[in-house]
């Protein structure tokens, strides 16, 4: 029965630490989205027709976020019954927005003001014989347009 108690402990710790980390991450994401709002990012393949000839380069943002123990048990329970896995939805949302921000940060560092043809790729990192999801990875990439300095 020690197993039950240890399991319960892990779930509680996972929940507390995980939800604190998630809230802080979302705060950070909103703050940086406001800071980087001037860099426009679109998934359209071609830049607007009126853009001035610029330097063009590929930029990308990569992030790997791990699942905490509470989320993993919650998702497994949901897997038994079916339906929206709300625990993993917030995880993927964080990862997606973070990846886009990192891509914009790289664009800013290069002096770009626009990123076109933005694409996102999501992968789940699994481990073990049961293929348990342990982390989610999102890669956001696009074409950055760097204006000539006037």
């Amino acid at each position, binding site marked *: 029965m020690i197993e039950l108690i240890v399991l319960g402990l892990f779930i509680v710790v996972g929940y507390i630490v995980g939800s604190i980390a998630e809230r802080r991450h979302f705060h950070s994401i909103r703050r940086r989205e406001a800071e980087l*709002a001037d860099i426009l990012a679109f998934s359209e393949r071609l830049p607007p027709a009126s853009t001035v000839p610029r330097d063009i380069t590929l930029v990308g943002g990569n992030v790997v976020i791990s699942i905490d123990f509470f989320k993993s048990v*919650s998702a497994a329970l949901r*897997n038994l*019954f079916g339906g929206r896995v709300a625990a993993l939805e917030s995880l993927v949302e964080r990862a997606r927005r973070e990846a886009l921000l990192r891509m914009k940060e790289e664009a800013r560092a290069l002096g770009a003001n626009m990123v076109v043809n933005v694409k996102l790729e999501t992968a789940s990192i699994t481990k073990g014989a049961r293929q348990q999801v342990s982390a989610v990875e999102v890669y956001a990439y696009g074409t950055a347009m760097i204006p000539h300095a006037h």
Partner: protein
Amino acid sequence: MNYENRQVPEGINVSRDHPLKEFFALLIGLLLILLVVIAGLSLIAERLVRFIPFETERRLAASVAERYLSTPSDEDALLVESYLRKLGAQLAAHQKLPEGISVTIHYQPGEVVNAFATLGGHVVIYGGLLRKMPSENALAMVLAHEIAHIKHRDPITATGRGLTVSVFLASIGGFSNSSALASLLNNMGLVTAMSFSREQERAADRDALQAVYAHYGHTHGAADLFDVLGSSGREPPAFLNTHPMSRDRKDAVRRFQAEKSTEGETVPIPAAVRAAIGSSSSSR
């Protein structure tokens, strides 16, 4: 055309519900389902076990019994075993065992404080427990309790139920992606199965009390057994225990005594047997 990136609206991709709400709703739902299925399997096991003849049980146990429960070699152990068998036969006569069921009592010298009934009608009493018995009445309670298990066919029921429940749990756990959930399910199933075993123990206690009352004309000294059991070492909490708590078992005896209040003296264990228990402390 106006290109702009607006502020990301919250709450569209992410659920506003608290994650704990979902977690507990699912967990409790699963627990309830487990409870119902295990209860169903246990009841079915109990019904179906009647169809397994006692002879089959005896054959199942035969090979194990030969290896571990051979007749004792030294005189003292033989003396104790024959005393136990005589007392057991007297109690069994009062308990009216069904046709074809026989009880074989074995004495195991040593320090272990335990007694159990297993397949094939074998009952084993350890030296450690015998040494702690304050009177023959308490010892008779132990013997009658184990004989009652044989009478109710509890060993084969528990075996059959344990098998079906663990196969069921393994199939759920096997489908899940999380080994944490699988072990959580396992433990929850075990805890539920233990509550059924407690009911069997209560039934055995009731039967034993009747037998002891019929044999001695009173039940004084029977409750002393639970004082000994409750004081030796740590008892797990009620829901994790295969037996009811010792104090609850004592209360059941008191209630029985209140209904059938009689006077009587407790009978001591014969001095020769006491000496034999004390000296034959070698473990085999």
